[in-house]
């Protein structure tokens, strides 16, 4: 026998041990995706199911609700990711400064919303953003500003959701970036100081370049987070929003399946969403490759 018995024994152990995980992943991740693909190519359910090819995708591509949803999703994603990443970076830099007292307390406070269920976050912010009785507009009025219809206007509703989501997840981004920050050796900063660099120059030429891998990870994580968690916000607060302005893809999938019972279409939406996510992942991977020294 070319392969010794003791190695064979190990390989058998490896395969046996992997089996539960592989079965679960295969059955509950891959198989549903293939199933989704098949369903999206057919019409009707159960007995009625018949193969109609890519007709549904054609109808989606010419539908208003799809492009509206895409617009809302991309707008939300872009706004959310940029706000949380910039704020996360700023807060991480501030919290990292060893001269700041109580920095652990600040760090804990800012991170806390991440641990709270999105349901609770959605409810409390809906209560606070009520344009007539909410506390936010009340405070604005006290300061002399006019209260805004945060969740009632198509133009403002999506923006409000971005702010709520950012509130929830900026702490997580901050922690992620903070970890990257702490990986930058102090000696780099010392060298910068000796060369006479100002605080801003050190930030721009030492910190940011060395942080790029961390930042790109933060951006990818934010994008996925934003996509998955946004469902809760829409489901609890806006149900698609004033005039479909907050009808994001994650919610569109859900309501097509469970409000309209159009499973093939819902599956098609899900697969399109998956495609977009994979494109973003690949783009991010390629960009990161270019930044690595």
């Amino acid at each position: 026998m070319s392969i010794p018995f003791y190695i064979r024994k190990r390989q058998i152990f490896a395969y046996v041990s992997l089996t539960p995980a592989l079965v679960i992943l295969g059955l509950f991740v891959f198989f549903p995706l293939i199933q989704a693909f098949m369903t999206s190519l057919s019409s009707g359910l159960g007995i009625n199911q018949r193969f109609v090819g890519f007709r549904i995708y054609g109808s989606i591509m010419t539908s208003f609700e799809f492009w509206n949803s895409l617009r809302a999703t991309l707008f939300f994603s872009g706004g959310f990711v940029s706000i949380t990443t910039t704020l996360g970076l700023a807060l991480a830099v501030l919290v990292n400064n060893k001269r700041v007292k109580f920095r652990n307390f600040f760090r804990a406070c800012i991170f806390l919303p991440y641990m709270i269920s999105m349901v609770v976050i959605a409810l409390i912010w809906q209560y606070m953003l009520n344009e007539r009785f909410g506390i936010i507009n009340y405070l604005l009025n006290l300061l002399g500003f006019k209260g805004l219809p945060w969740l009632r206007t198509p133009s403002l509703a999506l923006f409000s959701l971005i702010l709520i989501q950012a509130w929830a997840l900026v702490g997580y981004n901050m922690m992620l970036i903070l970890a990257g920050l702490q990986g930058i050796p102090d000696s780099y900063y010392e060298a910068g100081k000796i060369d006479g660099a100002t605080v801003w120059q050190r930030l721009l030429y030492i910190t940011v370049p060395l942080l790029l891998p961390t930042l790109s990870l933060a951006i990818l994580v934010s994008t996925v987070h934003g996509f998955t968690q946004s469902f809760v916000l829409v489901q609890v607060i806006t149900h698609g929003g004033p005039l479909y302005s907050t009808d994001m893809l994650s919610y569109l999938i859900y309501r097509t399946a469970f409000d309209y019972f159009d499973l093939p279409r819902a599956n098609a939406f899900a697969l399109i969403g998956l495609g977009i996510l994979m494109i973003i992942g690949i783009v991010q991977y390629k960009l990161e490759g270019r930044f690595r020294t």
Partner: protein
Amino acid sequence: MFSFFHKFQTKDSNKNRSPIIPVWTITVYTVLILFAVIAGFPLFFIASLSLQSFKEVSRFPPTIVPHSLRFINYVTLFAKGPFHRYILNSFIFAGTLTISHIFLSTLAGYILAKFDFPFKHVITVFVLSTMLFPANLRAIPLYILVVKLGLVNSYAGLIIPFLTGGFTIFIMRQYILSIPTELIEAARADGASEFGIFLGIIFPLAKPALTVLAIFQFTLRWNMLLWPLIVARGDLMTLPVVVAQLKGTTERFAYWNLIGAGSMLLLFPTFVLFLLLQRYIIKGTQGAIKF
């Protein structure tokens, strides 16, 4: 007050001495305090809401501090439905998944990290690629599958699809890679069984990563809305599903004090988890960077 600034000035003797350091300090603290308040106030507000009376909660201007602490709101909430059952469901959902991830993902991560076998690369790609498929996109076909298996509205249907996941396997794999293989080889030379090695060596050594994994997994599943919303009905609902429905269709005249009470129930375990285990949570996010 002056000694406060004086301390800063002596430490800065190596840097370019700028007379505007106090202004910098003020900005930094202002920003941090501002964000801490922005982060903390809504949570304080929920607690306050949960103790207000219906009149106070519907009042304008809004009440920030309740006049009397109406703990009876919680009693009223429990009278509205079998909340003890909902809380139990959430614990079962989150707890079972945490335990199964701890066990299955560590095992899978160990195999992928320390073993060599045909098709290893293919399998690794297969497993890790599942990280890219969030629950949102899998939910619909998963639901169809669960219906076909006859598992709708059962604990099994709720739990089984999420027993393990690419992300947790990835985390454990990365951590186990850093365990010296010599330890494993030595144990093998001593005649230990493969499974014995897993339980006796790998598992204890992986504890730091496992703690972090457990915390995040429990939090994630405790807070999860989408899947329980789709699969659970009636008595099987988990806490987020129930609390989300407390609002009903009206916003203005909803019982916001009861919603506050329900929210407090929902956020309490993860909040306590956070307070007690902050150290591990911080380590967890740091660990993610090292990949």
